[in-house]
Each structure stands twice: as structure tokens, then as C-alpha cells.
């Protein structure tokens, strides 16, 4: 682990990240950086490697080669990764999954307080206080004592966001956070994400919500076949994509929406 080789304003730097599953190359030499406070939308067709790239940022997926820097913590994946390095990296990154992945045997409050106690060593009272503050923020304070199974998909996803935020991450990763939701329920999740973006949270969002990508993100990265096809400001990408593949993808997605 080295301290801050990246420029101070770079929250995330990926350098030459490659990922193979056997002979299948999922990520082919991907490099990108995300400035702190920036919201990046990762878009592209299914199987492009968007989710894999996102999961490489917090090393849920270990790249085959390359380096990953998050808020000053750099990990060279070719070397063995120590548990301490991994913990340092993950403490800076929050993640929200498509399928929420709340713990069904714990109450909503406990879902948010338990990780704080385990990871940050907060007392139960402290952790629960923080959890309640966040539940109020996502409009679900009244669900604190319920079990996740009793909440709607949109509510579960907002709880999952609160759970990730409770650990005070510097960066938030969203892996298709609204794909498993009805459009109406998706909106309430997107509203919470918009608020987060407005507050200056660094976010990387894998999404098929083109409206969100266009209106909320500062930067759009288009991926295809495990590589970055093009990237730029949302209005550039949506108004005049330079790659025919991007044009075809955007046409297909926007027609459906």
C-alpha cells in the first residue's frame, strides 16, 4: 500500500486493468480516473464489462493485472493483497447492488448498525444513532424495526444506500441500482442518488437509466467488449456520439424508453 501517488483530486484511478475468466477477456486494459465529487455513468450493452469494472474498484472482483487507487490507497493487483490493504480500500468505498442484498434475518436498523460496529468499531448506541439519521434522510425512519422482507424493492434499495453511507465512504459505487425495480419505485431510488450527487459524493453508476446518466452525471463512459469505447460530457455523448457502436446502443436504449 502506498500513499497518494495519484493527484489529490483523483478519487479513483484505474490503470491498465485487465480481467480474464479463463481464456475469456472481460476487461481489456481499461484505464480511467474519477475526480472527487464527480458522478460518472458507466453505460453500454450487456456483457460490455461495466459491472465487472465496477466490482474491480472495490476488489469484489480481482483484476488479472493493473492497479487501482481509491482516495490515496493504491493496490497493485499483480502482487498479493494483504487483508489490511483490502480493508483500507473497502473502507473508502460504498457499494449498492442491483438486488439490494440486505441481510433478511436482521431488522432494517440492525442492517445499518451492525457493519458500523464491526468495521468502524462504533458502539451500538452510536451506530444506531447514525443509522436513524440516515434512515430519516432516505425517508424510512418508520421502517427501522421491520425486517427487509416487509419493505418494497425501492425501500430496500434506499436502506441499502443508507447502509453503505453509514460507513462514511468517500466513493459510492452503484451497480444497476434500479434494474430490479418497477419504474415508479426506481424513481425514489434515483431521487436519493440525485441528492447524494448534489451533496458532492463521488459516484460511479452502472446504469441503463439514460435520463439519469444525461441529467445527473458529470461524465459518461461508454463500454463495449471489455473496453472503453468513448467517454465525455453527457451532452456530447448523447447528442453526438463519435462511435457508431455508441450510436447504435443509444438508439436502441432510447427507443425502448
Amino acid at each position, binding site marked *: 500500500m502506498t500513499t497518494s501517488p495519484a493527484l489529490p483530486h483523483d478519487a479513483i484511478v484505474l490503470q491498465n486493468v485487465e480481467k480474464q475468466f479463463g481464456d475469456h477477456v472481460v476487461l481489456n486494459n481499461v484505464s480511467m480516473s474519477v475526480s472527487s465529487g464527480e458522478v460518472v455513468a458507466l453505460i453500454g450493452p450487456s456483457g460490455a464489462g461495466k459491472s465487472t469494472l465496477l466490482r474491480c474498484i472495490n476488489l469484489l472482483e480481482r483484476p488479472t493485472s493493473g492497479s487501482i487507487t481509491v482516495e490515496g490507497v493504491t493496490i497493485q493487483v499483480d502482487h498479493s493483497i494483504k487483508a489490511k490493504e483490502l480493508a483500507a480500500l473497502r473502507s473508502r468505498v460504498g457499494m449498492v*447492488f442491483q438486488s439490494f*442484498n440486505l441481510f433478511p434475518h436482521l431488522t432494517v436498523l440492525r442492517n445499518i448498525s*451492525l457493519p458500523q460496529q464491526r*468495521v468502524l468499531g462504533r458502539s451500538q448506541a452510536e451506530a444506531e444513532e447514525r443509522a436513524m439519521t440516515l434512515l430519516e434522510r432516505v425517508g424510512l425512519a418508520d421502517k427501522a424495526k421491520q425486517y427487509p422482507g416487509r419493505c418494497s424493492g425501492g425501500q430496500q434499495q434506499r436502506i441499502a444506500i443508507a447502509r453503505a453511507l453509514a460507513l462514511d465512504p468517500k466513493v459510492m459505487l452503484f451497480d444497476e441500482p434500479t434494474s430490479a425495480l418497477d419504474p415508479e419505485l426506481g424513481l425514489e431510488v434515483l431521487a436519493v442518488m440525485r441528492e447524494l450527487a448534489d451533496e458532492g459524493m463521488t459516484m460511479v453508476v452502472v446504469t441503463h437509466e439514460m435520463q439519469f446518466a444525461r441529467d445527473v452525471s458529470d461524465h459518461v463512459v461508454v463500454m463495449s467488449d471489455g473496453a472503453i469505447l468513448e467517454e465525455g460530457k453527457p451532452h456530447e455523448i448523447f447528442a453526438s456520439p463519435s462511435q457508431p457502436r455508441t450510436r447504435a446502443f443509444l438508439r436502441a436504449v432510447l427507443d425502448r424508453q
Partner: protein
Amino acid sequence: MTEIWNDWLTHHDQLLGGLWVSLRLAFMALLLGLPAGLVLAVGASSRRRVLRGFIVVVIEIGRGTPALVMLQVVYNGIPVTLTGFVCAYIALALTTAAYTSEIIRGGLQSVPGGEIEAGRALGMSSFDVLRDIVIPQGLRIAIPPLMGFCILMFQATSLAFIIAVPELTSQARSIANNTFHYLNLFVIAGVLYAIVTVSASLVTEQVEKKLQRHV
């Protein structure tokens, strides 16, 4: 029927004493065997190949050995002198550990991978993920089949008569050896076993219903 009732009236003290030994034996074997089963289940899911291989061999030996053989091996094989009860307790605990480890492993493996990933993404250590997410849910899933196994283990205590543990079957046999009322005594023993196992099955059903919440 009257004869059976008369035998019960005459020998109920000895038979109930035997039942009490059977219950204690089952309880003790489960008390040691179930936690050991959990340890073996976690070990069998380990990422360390050598450890996993060793544990799987231990489990397979335990599962492959009939309880009756296990009782004899422990009784004759342990170099220190132990009572038949303690030997039976150890042997049945070993059998319990081997069998329940597979039941528990099935439970642990049925915890959705997404939840384990969420725990890791939150920065929880492997131990925390196991303790707080996998084991509580995995055990909850494994409880109904484990309770079924506990009932079988209670019945398996009858095998301990082979090493002279004065449990229910052994008492029934010893009374019958004197009275020659073999059928009567084993019918009474059978009814006593059934009272315990049917009650335990009813409890299992209730527990199963309760556990279906929040999973």
C-alpha cells in the same frame, strides 16, 4: 394387553430409569456433536485445500462408520478406562458431528452469495461475514433437518445396550431376560420411544413454521 399393562406396572421404575439414561445420552451426544458438526461444516467449506481435504476425510469416515461399530471402537479403543455411558456419549457425538456437518454445510451454502458479497463490500472481515451473516441464516435453514436428525440420534441411543449402558432398550432386555416377556417389554419400550419422538416431531413442526418468517 392386560399382560403388557401388568408388566408396565411392575417394571415402570426400571423402564423410566432407562428412558432417562437414553434422554441424557442423546442430550449429551448432541450437546457435543452439534457444535462439532458446525466446526466441521465451516472447515469443509474452507478455501484452504489441505484443511478442507482433511476435514472431508474425517467427515466421510464418521459417516461411513455405522454407529454400532463406532460404539465398539470407542469402547474398546480408548486406552483409558471410561464408563460405558461416557464411551457411548463420545461415539454418538462423533457420529452426530459427522452427519450434522453435512446438514449444516448445506444450510451455510444456501445463504445467497449476494449477501456475502455485500458484507465483504461493506468491509466486514471473513470471520464477521461468517458469524453475522452466514451462520445465523445457514443454521436457521438447517434447523428443521437437524431436529429430524436429533430424533434419529435419540433412537440410536438404543444401540448403546451393546456396551452395557443401562438405557431403555437395555433395561427392557434385561427385564425380559428374567421374565421371558420379550414382546411385552419391547412393546412398552417402543411406546416410550414413540412418545418422545412424536412429541419432538410436533415441536419440530412448530419451529419450522416460526422459522419461515424473515427468510
